[in-house]
């Protein structure tokens, strides 16, 4: 695969390397995100479910056009930069944003019934509900219990067992 297109000059150099791996992780990320959505209940059923991308992302190329296990469609939309108001989203995939920006975003979405998944926060300090972590072959996730508790969503408790950071 050629390096990521020159159309994104704003990406830092380290991100370019990640972008090269993006296609490798993209299916796994799509699977994890879809599964997380599958195991989460919104206060009212969302159909279709609106999944938004905030910021640039390395592994989100397969997130467009997801289909849930129960057959619901997932609408994919990319939020414009700086648009922290996410009233139009049921789930937000937070891409490669600086930590303060991520925190700002999660703080704005807290208690609003919006799922947050952070791609670039392996230590899970952004207060996102789920933080992806990338191992050599597999994609796993950590779960921020505080964030899940305050999100207003119900996550299947069985998912807690799968969280990498949880005992």
């Amino acid at each position, binding site marked *: 695969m050629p390096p990521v297109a020159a159309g994104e000059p704003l990406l830092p150099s380290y991100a370019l390397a990640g972008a090269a791996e993006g296609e490798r992780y993209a299916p796994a990320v799509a699977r994890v995100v879809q599964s997380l959505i599958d195991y989460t209940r919104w206060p009212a059923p969302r159909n279709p479910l609106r999944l938004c991308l905030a910021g640039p992302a390395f592994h989100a190329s397969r997130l467009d056009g997801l289909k849930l*296990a129960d057959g619901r469609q997932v609408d994919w939309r990319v939020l414009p930069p700086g648009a922290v108001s996410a009233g139009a989203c049921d789930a937000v995939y937070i891409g490669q944003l600086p930590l303060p920006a991520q925190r700002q975003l999660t703080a704005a979405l807290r208690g609003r019934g919006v799922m947050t998944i952070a791609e670039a926060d392996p230590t899970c300090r952004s207060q996102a509900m789920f933080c992806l972590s990338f191992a050599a072959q*597999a994609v796993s996730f950590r779960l921020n219990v505080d964030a899940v508790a305050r999100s207003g969503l119900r996550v299947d408790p069985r998912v807690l*067992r*799968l969280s990498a950071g949880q005992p």
Partner: protein
Amino acid sequence: MSSERLPTIRDMLARVHLRLMLFAVLLAAASLTLSGGLVIRNYAQRNLDLVARTVAYTVEPAVVFDDRQAIVDGIASVADGGGVQQVEVFDPAGRVLARWNNPRAGLPAWVLQAGNRLLWPRPAAVPLMRGATRIGEVRITGNPEGLLRFALAGTIIALSTLALTVIATRILARRLQSDVIGPLEHVAEVAHAVRTERSFDRRVPVAGIAEIDRFGQDFNALLAELQGWHASMAREHAELSERVLLDPLTGLGNRAAFEAALADAVTHAVTTSQSFAVLYCDVDQFKAINDAHGHAAGDVALATVAERLRAVLRQADRAFRLGGDEFVVLLAPVGPGETVSRIAARLSQAMTPPITMPSGQAVCTGLSIGLATYPDDGLSPQELLRRADSAMYRDKRARSQNKDGGL
């Protein structure tokens, strides 16, 4: 004795009890084991299904997230409780996603396999569903250890119950023996005593069991009748034998009684080395009295003579009437200061008073007495009697000569 080889009632009771109880215990054990085994097998099957469903529920997110380590952890957290030998999770294509084996297999593998083949023809399988999509399958192989332990425990319990049964049979037989056979043995013992010892006064005691008591009452009633018969028979027999040996006119013993008494006296004298005497007496002029005064007068004379004999004789002496006017006296050994001839003289003297006849006339008579002493005059009864008889004739001749001479 052949009777010792015959089975006793106690043996028969014990055998019957044992068979009955063995049959009951084996039947109960077999039916309990069978039904219990079936029930437990069903429960084990249900348990397997339940574990399979629980595993499916638990590992479903892990399968969705494709987290194999989480699958194994999830299986272990559910299936570790026991009753499960192996858990396998397959993906829809049939590839193994995770396999978990019970680390605590206590029995050899071949035992487990045989037990499994017997109990569960195929492993419990539950599909893994995510919504309407089939995302895999959980297959569980059971662990028959629990069932095998149940069978083992059942066998041990059945065996110990059998042992208890045998003991209980013995105790029951012993109790039955004391309750039933004891009273029967009382009856048998009484019957035996009645037969061998003629103890008709024995009675069967009350047993406290209705049938045996009825039997005992009838038996006692029979015994009472038997006792009555026996008593009357003995009485009649005694009367008859007395009558046979008695002279009805004088009340003295007759010839048969005398012969027996003489034989006894000889035997007694032989064993005790004592002497005794036989007095042979004959009434003088009895024929003349008979002729002159009639037979009734003769009878009176004989009775009077017998009475006078009895009056003179001592307690131990015995008088007999041999027939006609002949009497015999058996004299017991005489004490010191006493002689046989003096007794004879007293007898002779006792006859001197006249005898009053029924007609009112008085008749005088006397006794001719011959004496024979054992052992001086003879050793056998015949010899003694012969000697006494001839002595009596000598006396009679002497007396008649005296009389003639006196006249």
